[in-house]
């Protein structure tokens, strides 16, 4: 059904640590690999080895440069469906193929009833839905619904393929509706945020902000990070040097 559930029992989602992500594309590749063989498979490609390759992917990793000059930073930025709490991608669907599950909050497309009108992709501000030209239906992140409850695979694998694949541990999966879950705790500790909250779809996935390091020359870059209070240089040159060395070595900053 295209109506949204009043409330969901869980808010399953991802927490993505922008401080750790190195932009290696392992999550995107692993996602494609699993989902081209899993639920709503395959994810078709066109001209994959030619000059104009394209295809349906459920996860995309951008790289941005943020800030100016010496204080600027490269931020690798994975982007997939955020399993919003109140998304219009569900309510605009004329067939009921786009739906949000009451039991865990996952937003899915039913590949058996989708007519491929693409309206849901127009309603998503995050560009998270990709149309499959061969299949004629819409594709999107399923939060690996065919892994997380799958008792035929080893327990360690019962997490989304992207989380399993990430070599740096930049991705975590869990119930963001439960304040005591590991993901909720890390969000609370690190000041995790949702994308484009101003828009009002209440995205569930959270992003942990990049920590700011030191600009060359040892000056702290303006924005204090949530952990900055742990280092309190009193201002002398030697103190600043120690503080700098401490942060650089511990990688905390």
């Amino acid at each position: 059904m295209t109506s949204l559930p009043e409330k969901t029992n869980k808010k399953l989602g991802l927490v993505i640590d922008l401080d750790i992500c190195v932009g290696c594309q392992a999550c995107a590749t692993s996602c494609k690999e699993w989902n081209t063989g899993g639920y709503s498979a395959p994810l078709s490609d066109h001209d994959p080895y030619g000059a104009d390759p394209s295809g349906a992917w459920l996860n995309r990793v951008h790289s941005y440069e943020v800030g100016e000059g010496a204080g600027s930073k490269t931020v690798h930025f994975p982007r997939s469906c955020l399993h919003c709490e109140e998304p219009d991608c569900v309510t605009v669907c004329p067939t009921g193929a786009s739906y949000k599950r009451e039991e865990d909050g996952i937003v899915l497309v039913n590949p058996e009833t989708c007519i491929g009108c693409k309206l849901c992709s127009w309603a998503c501000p995050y560009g998270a839905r990709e149309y499959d030209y061969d299949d004629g239906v819409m594709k999107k992140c399923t939060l690996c619904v065919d892994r997380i409850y799958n008792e035929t695979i080893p327990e360690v694998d019962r997490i989304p393929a992207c989380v399993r694949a990430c070599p740096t541990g930049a991705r975590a999966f869990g119930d963001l509706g439960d304040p005591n879950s590991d993901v909720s705790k890390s969000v609370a500790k690190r000041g995790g945020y949702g994308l484009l909250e101003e828009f009002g779809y209440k995205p569930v996935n959270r992003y942990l902000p990049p920590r700011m390091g030191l600009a060359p020359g040892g000056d702290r870059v303006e924005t204090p990070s949530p952990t900055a209070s742990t280092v309190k240089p009193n201002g002398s040159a030697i103190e600043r040097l120690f503080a700098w060395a401490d942060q650089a070595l511990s990688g905390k900053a």
Partner: protein
Amino acid sequence: MHPAYSVILFTTASGAGYGLLFWLSVMHLLGVAPDGRWLLFVAIAVALALVTIGLLASTLHLGRPERAVGAFSQWRTSWLSREGVAAVATYVPSGLLALMWLLGFGSGVVSALLALLAAVGAVVTVYCTGMIYASLRTIRQWNLELVPAGYLAMAAATGALLFGFLLALFGHAPSWAATLSLLGLGVGAALKVYYWQTIDADEGQYTSEMATGLGHLGQVKPLDPPHTRPNFVMREMGYEVARKHAHKLRRLVLACLFAVPALLLLALLTVGGSGAMAFYFLAIGFAAVGVFVERWLFFAEAEHVSMLFYGKQRA
């Protein structure tokens, strides 16, 4: 937004069809429409043919047209579904009306009732079409009350022109028909100009810094794209028309859809009757080009919020 020709054809053809159905029904209801059996039947048949061509064209852009009946199920939340329901519902009174007129039952209480239902159905359906776009908050050029109003006005104007032409075809050229078209064109032009001013004045409230949540660290610029060639999202949502080009096309719309047909109608009103068919024919030719370009622009000028992730600064 990528302007899909099937959707342009659908909205313009069915818009004109519903416009014609509306005026025909209203004028019949008011007892102003001439009572000729063939005139009434041909007019309603043309209206239904245009609506049907439009609806069939709209299924062309579906990935799975064979499942289209499922689209009638979610009218509680989806404007696209509501449009489908309204379109089918409108076929019932208008189809019966066509049958009655074909069989030579001119006017009466029954035809008046059916005409009323057909007129209401036409308005509701076109309103739903407009709301499909207006309900999308992701596109600020669409998320406006002006959008359904514009769809209704364009349908009314093009439908009135068709109605005038069909009346002329059967030897009637009442001045009220030309006046009706003129009014339709005037309202349409005013709304369109106001719409363009409105979208030009709104530079967008969302930024790439808000989209990524990285604004506190400085300006966000794309460094490496996530894919080497445009994906579906970029092709569908990232279509952009150069501002200069768009402004040229806007002038073309003003000329073809409004100014030229209006001048032709004014000329018709002054010289009167005999050449009415030719005047309408020309006016419809220009208006058809105009409304097609108008609809193309409606898509091409629409900017999608998701492009903030792909280097757009504001949307």
